[in-house]
């Protein structure tokens, strides 16, 4: 399947721009040559059917190494972390044979690493297929490693008509959304622009300079761009489409975006590492309602939770039980959804993030949306606070525009507003005014 994909890439005009990285442009012709070069180096270094870490984020070489490894029937493990402890943890869990450092092409053998083999790797090798290992954050702090049949995954990307579109690759190399963006771009013969820094200013400069048309993003990052005044200060008129996913979007932010970027379509994407990305349709740019329209995926809603049966499902977890998969193949996503008219759905949050106040369930987003309508509030994040009385209670961290009022008065106003607009148990018992809300390196909110 990977060979079929690569053969189709050969039909794209070889001078067409494929990748822009570090201000250098690489054509589809150059990419195919680079993949071949990498393949030959790897061929000299080790036999086929190995498990190999690609260390480094998106770059011209990391992409070429990825395809070279697939041609070599290897299982690849993208790791972008620069933190040694993180890397060590992931290596321990996934048990690779080699590490390739993508910027220097240094190959390190980890043989003598005698871990027990796992059956998912064996199955892939026995059926002559390439594989992919992804990690998701486990609740215990140890990453959960899962194995994809990459030949199967890539078979869902059909190389169709060539489209002259410029994409900014915002999501990362080790993320299902990031890999999805890359495979989509290449299958359309479009151009991918790889950012060196994922900061609002530098992303805006790239969008402007390379006339980016499509920007897959996250609500947190779009919010940062908004707070940073990016939409007022940069010409982003080339943007035809912004997609957002990975966490719930607030209605307030969506309407700000629609206002500031009236000509850009805003579409919600959905996917999980376990199932791959699902094709969706947003009701409109102003709407958080979406429909799943994907022949490779079936969905159903069980007790408010979204379940997916996917043709691109992972084989399983290496270091975790497979309880989130049912015997008949459904994956319990942990995402809560509401069914609306005409088959549209609204994603309302993670099951694990629901705050249980004495048996009453509170979704962080509904409280956040209430607080965000206050004009002196810039940003906020709602979380559970332990309470000996109600088990959990609602707490919130709020960023305000400037301290015109004193903190006590601000808290009072927030509380009063919440009482007016929310049910009693949803009103935060603790309000912390802070100067910024932290987010992870993947631009999802985090709490400390």
């Amino acid at each position, binding site marked *: 399947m990977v060979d079929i994909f690569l053969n189709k890439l050969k039909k794209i005009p070889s001078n067409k721009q494929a990748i822009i990285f570090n201000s250098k442009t690489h054509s589809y012709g150059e990419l195919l040559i680079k993949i071949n070069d990498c393949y030959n180096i790897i061929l000299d270094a080790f036999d086929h059917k190995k498990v190999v870490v690609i260390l480094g984020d998106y770059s011209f070489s990391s992409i070429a190494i990825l395809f070279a490894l697939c041609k070599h029937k290897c299982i690849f493990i993208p790791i972008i972390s620069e933190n040694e402890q993180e890397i060590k943890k992931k290596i321990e869990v996934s048990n690779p044979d080699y590490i390739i450092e993508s910027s220097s092409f240094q190959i390190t053998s980890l043989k003598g690493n005698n871990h027990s083999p796992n059956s998912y790797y064996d199955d892939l090798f026995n059926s002559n297929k390439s594989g992919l290992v992804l990690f998701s954050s486990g609740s215990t702090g140890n990453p959960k490693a899962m194995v994809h049949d990459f030949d199967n995954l890539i078979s869902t990307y059909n190389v169709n008509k060539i489209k002259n579109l410029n994409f900014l690759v915002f999501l990362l190399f080790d993320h299902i959304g990031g890999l999805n963006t890359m495979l989509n771009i290449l299958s359309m013969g479009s151009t991918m622009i790889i950012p060196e820094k994922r900061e609002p200013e530098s992303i805006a400069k790239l969008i402007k300079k390379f006339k980016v048309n499509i920007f897959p993003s996250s609500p947190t990052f779009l919010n940062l761009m908004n707070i940073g005044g990016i939409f007022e200060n940069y010409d982003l008129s080339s943007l035809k489409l912004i997609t957002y996913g990975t966490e719930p979007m607030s209605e307030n932010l969506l309407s700000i975006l629609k206002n500031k970027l009236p000509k850009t379509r805003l579409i919600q994407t959905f996917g999980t590492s376990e199932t791959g990305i699902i094709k969706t349709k947003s009701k409109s740019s102003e709407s958080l309602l979406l429909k799943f329209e994907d022949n490779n995926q079936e969905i159903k809603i069980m007790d408010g939770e979204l379940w997916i049966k996917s043709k691109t499902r992972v084989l399983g977890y290496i270091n975790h039980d497979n309880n989130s998969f049912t015997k008949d193949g459904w994956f319990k996503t942990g995402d809560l959804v509401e069914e609306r008219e005409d088959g549209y759905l609204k994603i309302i949050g993670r099951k694990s993030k629901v705050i249980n106040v004495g048996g009453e369930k509170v979704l962080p987003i509904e409280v956040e949306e209430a607080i965000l309508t206050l004009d002196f509030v810039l940003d906020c994040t709602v979380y559970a606070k332990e*309470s000996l009385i109600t088990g959990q209670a609602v707490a919130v961290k709020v960023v305000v525009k400037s301290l015109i009022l004193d903190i006590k008065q601000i808290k009072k106003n927030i509380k009063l507003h919440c009482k007016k607009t929310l049910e009693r148990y949803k009103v935060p018992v603790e309000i912390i005014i802070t100067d910024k809300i932290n987010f992870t390196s993947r631009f999802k909110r985090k709490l400390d």
Partner: protein
Amino acid sequence: MEKNEKIINFLEEFLTEELDETIKLSLDSKLFGGGGPLDSMALVTLIVELEEFLEDEYNVNITLADEKAMSRRTSPFSRVSYLIDYLNEKINNE
């Protein structure tokens, strides 16, 4: 201002805001349960705010709703005087 008076002032301010009417308290006033003005969510909020108040005023970091407080025969949150005794006990034990 004397400590007890400060606590009563704090409680009055809290209740006034919470109930949206001016509240005057005496040592005998009921708080939670037995017809007192606090509902359970107000109690949860009060505990959080009291902890904050104690930290600001007396520089003590105290968990007010602990297992011990919950299992007392008379709840420290039922009456103003009980709450004041309980807070003093907590502050002195720090």
